[in-house]
């Protein structure tokens, strides 16, 4: 006789098996396959030996290192700005009660990255909406040049546009709940508004602020669309570099593409590890 608990457990596993198997098979298969190919083993293209040559080549290639740095820089700047503005927005959002405004700030989350990239292009390109607004104001000879620049400004704008609402969305419920619980108590004990935010609200939301920062940072670093549509031709981002290498007509370049993929996967795994440490960490800051 199987006990009831065991039975329920098996049932549970069976029920999530279809979904779980897709995730597990795809992820594991892809990672293993990528790793094997990145070592130079693709029998169907007559590459039959294992070597670390391709990794060494990449890490001595100026273009690759530049693109890694460029992606890192753009991702870091946009994640920091998006997190700060997102927390700020989240605080005010938590005070809004009407449905329309709380839906409005979530709009960018609903848009796909490509659509958002087109919006950014239409607004900030040199003959875009911004240019027309400024020139109707009577200021002539303006040069709006925000996309395609090698500072990556267009991409940063896109990442902030998509990241900010996400952070706000993550922290707003915590602020809302905390406000209900602590706001009155804090005021009663003579806490100023500023002290209340810095000493009570932010520490409470610390965990979700850091985790959402990690998520958008990781995503921004390896995203393809933003850099492809709004980024400069030089330097290129690591995602675009991987894709370009992977698609080269000389199929042996595919190994480099796989090695770049593997490097991206490793960085993501490290960030994931940090993320789980944050989520699983000590349970301080729980709202009672």
């Amino acid at each position: 006789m199987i006990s009831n608990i065991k039975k329920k457990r098996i049932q549970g596993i069976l029920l999530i098996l279809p979904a779980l198997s897709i995730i597990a098979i795809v992820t594991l298969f892809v990672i293993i396959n990528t790793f094997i190919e990145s070592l130079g083993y693709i029998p169907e293209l007559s590459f039959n030996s294992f070597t670390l040559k391709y990794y060494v080549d990449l890490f001595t290639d100026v273009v690759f290192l530049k693109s890694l740095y460029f992606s890192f820089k753009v991702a870091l700047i946009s994640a920091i700005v998006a997190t700060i503005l997102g927390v700020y927005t989240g605080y005010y959002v938590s005070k809004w009660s009407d449905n329309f405004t709380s839906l409005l700030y979530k709009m960018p989350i609903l848009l796909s990255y490509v659509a958002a990239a087109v919006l950014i292009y239409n607004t900030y390109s040199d003959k875009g909406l911004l240019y027309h607004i400024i020139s109707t104001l009577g200021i002539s000879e303006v040069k709006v040049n925000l996309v395609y620049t090698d500072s990556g400004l267009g991409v940063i704008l896109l990442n902030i546009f998509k990241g900010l609402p996400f952070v706000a969305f993550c922290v707003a419920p915590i602020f809302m709940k905390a406000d209900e619980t602590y706001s009155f108590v804090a005021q009663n004990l003579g806490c100023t508004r500023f002290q209340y935010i810095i000493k009570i609200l932010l520490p409470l939301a610390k965990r979700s602020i850091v985790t959402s920062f990690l998520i958008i940072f990781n995503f921004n670093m390896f995203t393809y669309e933003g850099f492809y549509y709004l980024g400069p031709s030089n330097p290129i981002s690591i995602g675009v570099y991987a894709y370009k290498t992977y698609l080269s007509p000389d199929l042996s370049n595919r190994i480099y593409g796989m090695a770049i993929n593997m490097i991206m996967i490793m960085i993501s795994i490290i960030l994931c590890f940090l993320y789980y440490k944050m989520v699983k960490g000590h349970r301080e800051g729980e709202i009672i």
Partner: protein
Amino acid sequence: MKKKKLLSLVLVFTLMISMVVFAGCENRAKQNQTVTLYGWGGDERVNAWIDNELGKYVKENYNITLKRVPMNIDEVLLKLTDEKSSAKSGSIDVIWINGENFYYAKKNNLLHGPFLNTLENAKKYYDLEGASATTDFGYATGGYEAPWGTAQFIFNYDSEKVKAIPTNAESLKEYVINNPGRFTYPKSSDFSGSAFIRTVLYDIVGYDKLKNLDPSYDTVKKVITPALEYLKALEPYLWKDGQVYPSDSAQLDSLYQDGEIDITMAYTANKALSMVKGKNWPSTTKTAVWEKGTPFNTHYLAISAIAPNVEGALKVINAALSPAMQISKANLDGWADLPSIKYEKLSQEEQGNLDKTLTPAKEYAPSILNYEELSKHQKPELKSDLVVIIEKIWEDVILFDK
């Protein structure tokens, strides 16, 4: 109890889905009168021609349903490699291909063949010993692909804005310096961008010096250095100060359409005609070639090594090579692709039809060059591995300043 019911429902549902899937597989294996054609899908006129003309023709004559799958050739090759490593039979039948992609596909045994000499229409209407049937970008085709059409690289410009169109590297430089920000070209990874770079090479270095070059990075770089210096000197005067290059010819065309640049380029000789006709481009748009010639090439149809329907694929390619299809493909109102068929082998009536389709209506005649003018300025393509190396060098030197 409720959970049990739910569980059994889920199981039954899964079973049903898998049955449907398996049944579907079997059906496909039995009928299999569908032929897939994988190739570039970036031009609506080309797509429309394949769907409405070629598709209709093979349906009527062979009862084959032609399924066009728009996909960039690099992705097709990738898909082919993946399928070959994992399955006995793939999903790709016919591939629209040429140049370096053919070279690497054949080298990696991704193609079926040789088959060209078995095609009825190829034997009847084509010069099988001729250059376009035997060599593709300098390398032997070995009968692994059938010549489908020819194309020549040309420049399109707005004659209202560009009074004297540059026809060599020197005059282009002059134009670009005098009109900063009004000219650019796509990256070397784009077909047209790559062809533009070769046009410059033909002018500055010369085709004869390039054609037998040893395909090694350093040798090629040394020989083409003057051209690289030239392109580097152009850079600061290009659109967006050369900080960004359009990623493909579609982006370049839209810049031209928006009036941001004055000159665009294409590997389709008659493109201006349909663009002017469709009112996408100004009616003052004209076509030009360079004095020392522009690259021209043949594009081909090939069959995947693991094609599920080789027999059908052969029929489709045979149809694509037929006089009827070649003439309809050349129609200036449609795709306007130059035919690869041997003119002398056509019947008198067919010759007349071809002449008629190649003559534009009077009001549009100035926007394109006639075939004679084009053919006077044709230069063959370089070997495909050279092309790949040149593209890489351009990226390293011009794009990444290495």
